[in-house]
């Protein structure tokens, strides 16, 4: 679960280090709460996303540039990551959490704090744009 979550957050945030910190923080918090959490998996997904989103917002508030990618991104993923970065954040989030990570649409709606209807609209648009960007690139 940790691997998939990290990849999803990296795809969402565009920053593998930030993703790693968010996942680690979410797991740490979950362990701290222990039996209080009845569905740890869903809780961790939601918490990790919120931590990552919060950190991203803080960085943009502080006007920070993106950190250097100390992480070595595999060639095949570079185009995809660049395309994802060009999606608006909400569309990127639903594509990553729903299409990549297979989280149920209800959960994605809950994670983002929007209605399912909104999730679907973003999915539609996001998929269409992503497809166009990647296929244009191929051509």
């Amino acid at each position, binding site marked *: 679960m*940790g*691997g998939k979550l*990290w*990849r*999803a957050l*990296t*795809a969402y945030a565009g920053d*593998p280090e930030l993703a*790693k*910190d968010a*996942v*680690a923080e979410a*797991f*740490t*918090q*979950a*362990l*701290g*709460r222990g039996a*209080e*959490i*009845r*569905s*740890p*998996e*869903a*809780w961790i*997904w*939601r*918490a990790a996303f*919120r931590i990552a989103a919060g950190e991203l917002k803080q960085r943009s508030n502080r006007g920070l540039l993106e950190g250097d990618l100390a*992480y070595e*991104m*595999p060639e*095949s*993923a570079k185009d*995809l990551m660049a395309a994802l970065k060009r999606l608006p954040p909400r569309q990127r989030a639903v*594509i990553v959490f729903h*299409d*990549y990570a297979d989280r*149920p*649409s*209800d*959960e994605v*709606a*809950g994670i983002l*704090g929007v*209605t*399912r*209807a*909104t999730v*679907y*609209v973003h*999915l*539609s648009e996001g*998929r269409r744009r*992503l*497809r166009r960007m*990647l*296929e244009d690139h191929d051509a």
Partner: protein
Amino acid sequence: MRDAKDLLQPLDEMAEPDIWAEVSAATGDRDLHAGLGPVRPRSAPPFRRRAVITLAALAVVIVPFAGLWLAFRAGSSPEPRVPSGVSAELIAYSAVVDGRWELMTVHPDGTSAAMIPIAGLPENATHPVWSPDGTRIAFDANPGGTSSVEGGNRDIYVVNADGSELTRVTNSAGWEYLPSWSPDGSRIAFVRNTDGNDDIWIMDLNGDHPRRLTDDPSLDISPSWSPDGTRLAFISNRDGSPEIYAMDVDGTSVVRLTHDDAYEGHPAWSPDGTSVAFASDVEGPGLYVMDADGANVRKVAPSGQVGPVEGAWSVDGSAIAFVSAQGTDLPPILQTLDLATGSTTTLRSGGELCCPDWSGQQGSPTAAPKDPRVVATLATRAIGLDGYAGAVAAGDGTVWVAVLGANQDASLQRIDAATGDLEGSLALPNLPSFLGVGDGTVWVPVMRGGAPELLEVDAATLEVTTTLPGFTGPVIAVGGAVWAVDGGLGPGDASLVRIEDGAVTVRVPVGETPFDLVEAAGSIWVQERRDEGDVAGTGGVLRLDPTTGQVLARLDLRAAGIWLAGDDTGVWLSAWLGPDGATSSASSAVIVPDTNAIAPFGSIYNFRPFAVGDGRVWFVAGPGDGKVHGICGIDEMGGVSTVCADVDGPDLEMAHDPAAFDPLTQTLWTGSYAGKVVTRIEARP
């Protein structure tokens, strides 16, 4: 065109860093996986436990409701028509005709025995079982081909009641046989034998998600679903001779029901769930009945010799159809037994007969007569609009659809519900997720420049007559007032407000913005939920006085998202039991307005109820994994008989979430998030 999953595949090639090192450094706990543990669902969600407790109360309450409902329906027109292909009290069975096993039907009085004409019927078709809505039959047969089990290959099939659309559901080299339908019609329990060992399995109606429930070297066969969909009775010889057991539909909580050295076979649960009929020879061969807990075993009819005496309960539980052997060299007879008088009626005799099943077997606990207005199919007609539907509402012969066009421009469209004609549109600043239909008006919550606004639009002129800044959806109009949501200062600060003549007269805190809001049984019902910091909150439903907003009841469902639909007799809901509830999947229930008791209704595979009309609760249906499969209606009182329209869409999951019912034209309208936007479904052809 590649789909999204393919495009995202390169993400899997990223090598993950060592996250655990960081976590263990933070917590000092080396054995993290053990600490966190596997995700294990609770044994029963509290929602269901509560529901079990109140089901008895519901049974007491629902009888007077049934009377009210029938009285209402008696006055309704037009005269109902039973389309072909739908049974009304038919018994299915198998028999040898001209040297071949065929599937047959006969009326309970023995008349009109007929063969079901099935093109391409495979060999040795038997064990027919009706779907709960009486439109289809599952059975097992030999498809031919090689088999891993002696005796030839055997698979499960489904066919329409009129013999059309034969579908093979299982396709393995092993034996699959003895199907049993779940009460909601979405799954089939069956027996699978791939290596000489028979075990009980469960799968979706189309064969997806097969799951093994029993796992021991003994014979485990003849599953029979309880009418409430929670248990399966079955036969096992794990303790010696074949006995009757029961287990939960996930294979746990196995309980042995019969305790004798006799042979037992073919358990069949009664429609009210209180008894089990079965074959036995404990007091001589015959048909027996016992209480659902195994007590009070009694023989109800003799059989000439030990052997299959497959009993099938009538819809109202007063009779059992069964085949009994009369004795060596005597032909078997298919007969019905009246449980009250003990008298039997022979329906067929002679030749080879087997395995009766009575249509509509898993009926409602009230023993109400089967609805003659059940329809088997819903006709659809698509209306093309270019864009996505964010919300759909209907009433008085008009349908309102909020649409996001191809150019990202949002609009409100008015459609004539009778003809499907587009009659007019109003440009909107964004795509709303809710609409509320009032008297000559429609309420549209929008976002303008990032700030919420509630628009009142004149239904005839499509002009905005009132703008109420700061309010959002969901929104409903009740009498001369409108109920809407004030988002407050941020998450957790939302309140439901009542606005009359432009002034807020009632304010009820509800925590997070509710998913849904409905007026039914003279009250306002709204979801209430509070998140607790980072932990996703759960909540329930508030029942409010429609004028004063006084909280009449607070029902704790421990759910994160709740959708509601109601009328005078009930409030139906489906709940997403969110991350901090028991499970992330949806669950369905009904609230009885007289008592505020909550009882399970339908199954978790129904969700998003959006309207009540024509005696049915209409909902957007899915198999519980978040994927929409169509628009369905389930009968209000019993929650069992279901009719569905399979609405095609380029992406089934995204098709047809917002939906509405127009009582005037008896049509259903659904929006889609891709492709054809609005679909009109006639509730009865």
